[in-house]
């Protein structure tokens, strides 16, 4: 049994891009069970750009699950952007989760935009000016929601979806000075608080594809400029050899239902 996950982030859509992804997307249902969109779906967060996303990524024949990115927040039209995407059947997660049935295997996806702050030893602290404390508190509140959303799912396979990076590994290629604006270790800690199989993110356009959290969860940067193709496909193989106690109980729960 294989769960096939397609993913891409940072497509930054507007009218000038509509149609570019569609030929590859038409083939997607043959190669994937679900498409995950890792934020920065629009150029700068207008409702009209969200309609472009709906046109390009709607009606695919597989479930589409998304988180928003910083670009999707720029025009302060987040509720309209979300409504437009959800009207097209694209589910938007923000500190929330969804469990999909993939041929009898329950795939749990928890998602949040995330935020910055930096990584262990080189990170911002909740100290000093109100603006600085607000910055760090924003990230920690989002990370808490993500962790909760991951842990509470009753599923066989867990995937975390964010826009900001949970680890510095996948930022290699970006200037080190801007790491604190690209992600936070708090997101990694949230991902490690549950038996997560895979963590997907975007945002770091000049970063690299592969990394791992301190707890051993595989991390993939699926920003479009990084993967240089319409989407990447990952095959997850549940149940895993040497599964953790959490996974074993999830499997037996499925067997008894």
């Amino acid at each position: 049994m294989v769960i096939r996950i397609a993913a891409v982030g940072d497509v930054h859509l507007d009218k000038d891009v509509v149609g570019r992804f569609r030929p590859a997307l038409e083939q997607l249902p043959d190669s994937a069970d679900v498409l995950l969109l890792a934020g920065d779906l629009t150029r700068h967060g207008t409702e009209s750009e969200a309609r472009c996303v709906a046109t390009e990524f709607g009606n695919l024949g597989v479930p589409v699950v998304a988180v928003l990115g910083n670009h999707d927040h720029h025009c302060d039209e987040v509720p309209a952007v979300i409504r437009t995407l959800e009207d097209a059947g694209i589910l938007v997660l923000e500190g929330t989760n969804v469990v999909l049935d993939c041929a009898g295997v329950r795939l749990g996806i928890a998602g949040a935009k995330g935020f910055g702050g930096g990584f262990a030893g080189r990170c911002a602290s909740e100290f000093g000016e109100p603006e600085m404390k607000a910055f760090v508190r924003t990230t920690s509140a989002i990370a808490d929601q993500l962790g909760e959303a991951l842990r509470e799912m009753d599923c066989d396979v867990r995937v975390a979806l964010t826009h900001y990076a949970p680890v510095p590994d996948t930022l290699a290629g970006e200037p080190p000075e801007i790491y604190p604006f690209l992600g936070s270790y708090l997101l990694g800690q949230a991902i490690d608080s549950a038996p997560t199989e895979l963590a997907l993110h975007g945002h770091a356009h000049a970063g690299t594809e592969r990394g791992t959290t301190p707890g051993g969860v595989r991390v993939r940067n699926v920003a479009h400029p990084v993967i240089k193709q319409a989407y990447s496909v990952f095959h997850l193989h549940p149940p895993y050899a040497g599964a953790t106690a959490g996974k074993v109980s999830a499997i037996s729960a499925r067997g008894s239902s």
Partner: protein
Amino acid sequence: MTQRGAGGGEPPDDYLEAAIQRLLTERTEIAEQGITVSRRDHSVVLCGEVESAQRREEILRLVLEHFPEVPVMVDIGLIRTQAPTEVEELR
């Protein structure tokens, strides 16, 4: 402070890079954060990848309009959108 920027003409190099970078990001018709701006001798090189040919042209037009004195070289590609030919097996 050197004399270079004092005449109100061309800004000093470090500020010029920052000014171009902010222009590309904060002008919403561009909103591009993935372009690197670097100096090479007396010209400025714009490097990176964008989602459409129109965006590449808009970037060049905007930079020329705002910094007409500065020789600009553009090395911006289009990000490919083909379907993947390989999958990654995660075991």
